[in-house]
C-alpha cells in the first residue's frame, strides 16, 4: 500500500472535525501557516498499526481542554484527572474514526492505548496543522512511520 502522508492527514483532519462536532459540539477550522501553542498544553497521542503505522497527536491548550471536557462529560468544571482522561479519549476517538475511514470493511488496523501528558510550550511534530475553534487554537499531527 502506497502511503501518502498528506492524503492520510486529510483523513485524520476529517475524523477530528467529525469527533469535535458530534461528540464535543465544537467546530474547528484550519488556520493558514504554522503556529505553535504556548503555556500549558494537554498532549494526547495514540499509535496505530496496520498496512501503515502512525501516531495521531492532539494538542489542546489547558483552558480549551477544560471546557471541552466539561461539555463532553456534562459537568461544569471537571478535575484535572478527568480533563486528562477526556483528552486521551478524544485522541482515541479521532484515531478510531480515522481508521474507520481508512478501512470501513477490512478493519485491518489495531490501536494502542492512548497516552496523555501536560506539556509547557510543546514542540509539535513539523507536519502539525493548526486549527481554531474561533476562540482557541489547537494542533493536530499525524506521524507516519516509514
Amino acid at each position, binding site marked *: 500500500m502506497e502511503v501518502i502522508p498528506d492524503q492520510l492527514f486529510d483523513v485524520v483532519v476529517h475524523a477530528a472535525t467529525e469527533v469535535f462536532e458530534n461528540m464535543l459540539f465544537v467546530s474547528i477550522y484550519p488556520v493558514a501557516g504554522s503556529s505553535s501553542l504556548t503555556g500549558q498544553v494537554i498532549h494526547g497521542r495514540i499509535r496505530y498499526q496496520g498496512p501503515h503505522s502512525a501516531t495521531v497527536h492532539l494538542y489542546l491548550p489547558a483552558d480549551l481542554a477544560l471546557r471541552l*471536557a466539561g461539555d463532553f462529560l456534562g459537568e461544569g468544571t471537571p478535575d484535572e484527572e478527568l480533563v486528562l482522561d477526556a483528552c486521551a479519549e478524544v485522541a482515541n476517538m479521532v484515531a478510531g474514526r480515522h481508521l474507520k475511514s481508512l478501512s470501513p470493511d477490512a478493519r485491518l488496523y489495531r490501536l494502542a492505548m492512548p497516552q496523555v501528558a501536560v506539556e509547557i510550550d510543546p514542540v509539535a511534530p513539523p507536519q502539525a496543522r493548526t486549527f481554531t475553534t474561533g476562540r482557541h487554537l489547537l494542533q493536530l499531527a499525524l506521524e507516519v512511520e516509514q
Partner: protein
Amino acid sequence: MHTSVLIVDDSATVRKVVKRTINQAGFVIHTFLEARNGREALEQLQQITPSLVVTDINMPEMGGIELIEAMKRHTHLRDIPCVVISTEGSHEVIDRMLELGVVGFIQKPFRPEELAPVIAPYVQMAVTTRAADPMGF
C-alpha cells in the same frame, strides 16, 4: 425487577458518558456499577449479577475479550449479555466477539441514539409520565 448495568472502561470519561447516555435514553437502571478493566469487573461479578455488561476492548491488566472469555467459563456469568463499545474494529477482534456471543457492538465515536436499540432488549424503559399518571397530574 431490579436492573443493573456494569460499565467497564479504563476511561472515567467513557464510563460517565455511557451512564449519562443510558439515563437520557429513558431506561430504568437501579444500579450502575463501574470497573476500570476486566479484572475489576470480574471482582464485581463475584458480588452481583448485572442485567447487562457494557465493556471496552483495549484496557490495561485485562481487556474486554479476556473478560468475556472468563465470563463464559463461569456457569453463573455466561448468560449475562455483553455489549462492546470500542474504537477497536479489527477483523480478529470482531470475529472473536461473534464467537463469544456478544449481543451488540458499537464503534466509538458513537452517537447516543446508536446505544439505545442495542441495550433495549436487556433493560427496561422508563414508564412515561403520561402512562404512570393517566389523569395527567
